[in-house]
């Protein structure tokens, strides 16, 4: 499988994603957005960064880039797509997933390890875990607060499309464990298909053993393996 890591102006986690995927034995390459998706792309990563300087809203500009029409079409055909951090903002801005990611409740940029409770273990992104497992993955964002209308939130919960929630070490979903004020502690959600997901934490920063404290994120990227 060749995974296309889509690089926009201002993406800065694209190399990290390729490196992490390489480590997992997944063939991955960076793809400049203006070049379009390669024909053999069997997976897509929308990486983190600050595409277009977060102008207007984080992810707003990249979400309207022509390549996103190709990404949406591929997603509808079942190609696995994951948006990480700025990629999550791009994914929600482009309509791949519901809700929006906006300014942290703290009004600060936050770069810190967080714990996530795996809410669904029957998706490609979480097959390595059990439901209720607690994993540690870092966040690095200023606009990661998940917002969604009450009606859409009810649908999201009813449809079981919350993939990860911020939690404490014991897996309790609490306000204290919510780093950014996200509605319902939501850290990651699924699109209409389980093969489409976005999350604010960075699994590619918790995959390589040499990088530090956690390799818990490897299971998420293992969806492409």
């Amino acid at each position, binding site marked *: 499988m060749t995974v296309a890591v889509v690089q926009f102006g201002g993406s800065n986690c694209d190399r990290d994603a390729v490196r992490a995927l390489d480590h997992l034995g997944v063939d991955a390459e960076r793809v400049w957005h203006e070049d379009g998706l390669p024909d053999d792309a069997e997976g897509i990563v929308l990486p983190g960064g600050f595409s277009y300087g977060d102008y207007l809203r984080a992810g*707003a500009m990249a979400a*309207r880039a022509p390549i996103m029409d190709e990404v949406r079409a591929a997603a509808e055909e079942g190609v696995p797509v994951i948006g990480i951090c700025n990629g999550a903002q791009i994914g929600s801005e482009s309509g791949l997933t519901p809700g929006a990611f906006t*300014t942290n409740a703290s009004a600060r940029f936050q770069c810190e390890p967080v714990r996530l409770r795996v809410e669904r273990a029957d998706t490609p992104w979480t097959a390595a875990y059990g439901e209720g497992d607690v994993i540690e993955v870092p966040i690095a964002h200023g606009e990661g*607060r998940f917002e969604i209308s009450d009606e859409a939130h009810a649908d999201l919960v009813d449809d079981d499309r919350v993939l990860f929630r911020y939690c404490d070490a014991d897996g309790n979903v609490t306000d204290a464990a919510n780093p950014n004020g996200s509605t319902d502690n939501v850290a990651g959600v699924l699109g209409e298909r389980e093969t489409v997901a976005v999350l604010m934490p960075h699994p590619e920063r918790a995959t390589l053993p040499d990088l530090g404290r956690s390799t818990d994120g490897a299971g998420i990227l293992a969806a492409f393996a």
Partner: protein
Amino acid sequence: MTAYTATVTVRLKRGVLDPEAETTQQALERLGFELSDLRSADRFEVDLDAADAGEAADRADEMAERLLANPTIHDYDVAVAER
């Protein structure tokens, strides 16, 4: 065709937390100002030529729908004036 300026004002929906506005309010209060609330908004001034004010408003409305506002968190309004 007539020259118009369409002013699109995008603001957070009531009830959506606005940490930047809260921080700004706190800074004003530190300066000694008394205020009970503060809301921020983005204003876009779009110069365009249109057959009439209604067409100018329609085009600005579509700009807001497709890019300037995010319907999940924003309300917006459009005002059109001859330029």
